[in-house]
């Protein structure tokens, strides 16, 4: 008989667990979702906020910008996130989705900037490249005279521009699910694509063809999808001095002994250049707050105050040490006023 006892205990235990599930929960903790690029900054602020105040440390999830906004716009209430981070601005379609699900009032907060770099190992020389060269090196199809395209024929960098090194084109970059990839395609590829006059004209006449030409990355092995892990790309670059990698500025900053950023249009990817806006491949980072949750979920206002404080987002703040490029003083004052007044998002 005694042998059945542990068995019965387990069954009772299981029932206890399942019944605990049905009891109610009060949300006493801020829930943050969104971009993996903003994640390191948001988590640093969350940690300080938790230590400086008596509130529970917010939970920060890294879901990607799109995934975060989808969760954020799924409705109001305990089981929906209070804040979502984004490495791009919210889209009109997402605002509509939010409004449809009752999330009418949203506070937008601009955090700062992030640069995307094309880097290689310190063992090779620094490459000076233009956005047009980047487009020609990585696009699936390239222009072939007026109005025509051909599959990308370039095998080495020197094929595109004799000033570039005569090594095989080999670029390691993030997969399509990544916000870094989106931004790279939009800023570097499309930026270079537009430099060709007839392509620029096509933007007005045939937007779809324009997009597919400028946004499609080649698939013949010259561009390698290296996964979302940027540390891995850095390690691969170290092992292969002729390869280039695409990642965020913070990884260049942390690994400056191993890799160097290529200059784009004669502009080096440095903290100053990105902050001034002269480095062409940089994007703004944002987060969005549900106004209806402010005051209901404790601490949201405190978290906002911590994020925009000089200690955090200032020029010498701890976020700058983590690789975030702060806004200019003017811009920052403007955004601080908006956040303090909890101004509603307007496009």
């Amino acid at each position, binding site marked *: *008989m005694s*042998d059945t006892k542990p*068995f019965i205990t387990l069954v009772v*235990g299981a029932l206890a*667990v399942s019944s605990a599930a049905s009891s109610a929960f009060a949300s006493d903790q801020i829930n943050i979702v969104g971009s993996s690029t903003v994640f390191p900054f948001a988590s640093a602020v969350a940690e300080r906020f938790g230590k400086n105040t008596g509130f529970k*440390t917010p939970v920060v*999830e890294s879901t990607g910008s799109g995934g975060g906004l989808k969760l954020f716009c799924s409705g109001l209430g305990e089981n929906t996130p209070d804040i979502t981070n984004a490495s791009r601005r919210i889209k009109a379609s997402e605002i509509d989705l939010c409004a449809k699900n009752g999330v009418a009032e949203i506070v937008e907060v601009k955090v700062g900037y992030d640069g995307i770099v094309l880097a290689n190992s310190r063992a090779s020389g620094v490459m000076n490249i233009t956005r047009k060269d980047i487009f020609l090196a990585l696009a699936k199809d390239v222009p072939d005279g007026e109005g025509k395209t051909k599959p990308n024929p370039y095998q080495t960098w020197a094929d595109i521009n004799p000033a570039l090194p005569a090594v095989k084109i080999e670029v390691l970059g993030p997969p399509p699910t990544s916000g870094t990839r989106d931004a790279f395609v939009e800023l570097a590829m499309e930026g270079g694509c537009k430099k060709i006059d007839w392509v620029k004209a096509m933007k007005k006449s045939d937007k779809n063809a324009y997009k597919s030409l400028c946004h499609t990355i080649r698939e013949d092995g010259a561009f390698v999808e290296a996964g979302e*892990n940027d*540390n891995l790309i850095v390690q691969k670059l170290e092992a292969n001095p002729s390869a280039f990698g695409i990642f965020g500025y913070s990884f260049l900053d942390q690994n400056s002994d191993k890799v160097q950023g290529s200059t784009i249009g004669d502009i080096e990817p440095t903290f100053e250049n990105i902050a001034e806006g002269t480095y062409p491949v940089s994007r703004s980072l944002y987060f969005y707050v549900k106004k209806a949750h402010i005051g209901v979920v404790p601490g949201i206002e405190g978290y906002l105050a911590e994020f925009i404080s000089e200690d955090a987002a200032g020029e010498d703040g*701890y976020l700058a040490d983590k690789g975030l490029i702060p806004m200019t003083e003017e811009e920052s004052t403007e955004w601080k006023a908006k956040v303090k007044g909890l101004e509603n998002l307007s496009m």
Partner: protein
Amino acid sequence: MTDHIDIISVDGSARHRAQKRFKSYGLLAIGLSLTFLFIMVGSIVLRGSSAFKQSFVQIKIELSADAIDADNIKRVRFGKLLKQSLRNKFPEATSRKDKKQLYKLVSPTAEYSVRKQVEANPTLIGTSAKLWVRTSSDVDMYLKGYVDANLDESKRRLSDLQLEWISLLQRENKIESRFNTKFFTGGDSREPEQAGVLGAVIGSALSLLVCFMLSFPLGVLAAVYLEEFAPKNRLSRIIEVNINNLAAVPSIVFGLLGLAIFLNFFGLPRSTPMVGGMVLALMTLPTIIIASRTSVRAVPSSIREAAMGIGANKVQTTFHHVVPLAMPGMLTGSIIGMAQALGETAPLLMIGMVAFIVDVPQGITDAATALPVQIFLWADSPERGFLEKTSAAIMVLLAFLIVMNLVAIILRRRFEQRW
């Protein structure tokens, strides 16, 4: 005509050779797998063992009674006091740039450790105390030998001036390498030198507890019913095939299912070990059912016949004789299932357990992460200091697995001894 002995001896040598060959193949296979295992564990230990040490620096800090309100210690800006004492120590740092470099010698969140030490020992207030705080991760990496000081200044994260300060502090014995207890007693942090695995270990333990509580009884009951009571017809065969198929479903699918059912339909809280455990239970159920059925089937029918023969009914036969005999096999199946569950990250991604969580969870409804998720998050962080922490967390995960298996083996032995 040859002798029988001759045939045997001639044949024998060929047979012996074949046997020897086979033996050497086997040895080679074992040797190779051991080498790979050794290389893997070796590289992890090599990279991760330095994470168990952390360098500390001694700072003389003026804790004047005017600056510190003992009743409201959370409000005190210890960061300011810490920066002041660093400036006192190295008065040559006057320019803004130099001062910034100076502050980067200590951990960016060292002020909280000062606060903690003052809170623990209020008699320090009003004195000038010598407190030990963690160095920043960059300094720690340098002291552990991961930074090449011969590189050009622009290529490393520590400047010549900072290296000078560090060597001065070293000469004065104000830098010390200590055992990094916080790695085992703290939650996650954005600063590598402050990060710990306890939150993830407890998160994993709580999830597995929920998973075991749900999947073990359900799995065993299902297996016993299917094997001993269910009529052998078409329906039970369909169920059997489907359970086998379920065992091969990729784990992310269970995560999606968990998201749709537990979070969206039942409205259970996101990022909690409760939901994590429920999703993992779904995943381990088929493994447990299959293993349990096999071990129930392996109980000789003579046992059942003997029990029936002395008048036991079906339920008595099953629960007094068959199940206890099959228990060791069932436990083995559960161990395999739980070990699989321990290493899963994909299903946890969908239910929000892949998150930055600082507070150590107190119960199954607190937000928590799990060990493999913590490893994934650290491996993905830009800071160099997280490299060693990643390997160290893998070592903790392996230790967790070994402890879990040991407990299971001991349990199994106990059940075995009764019969």
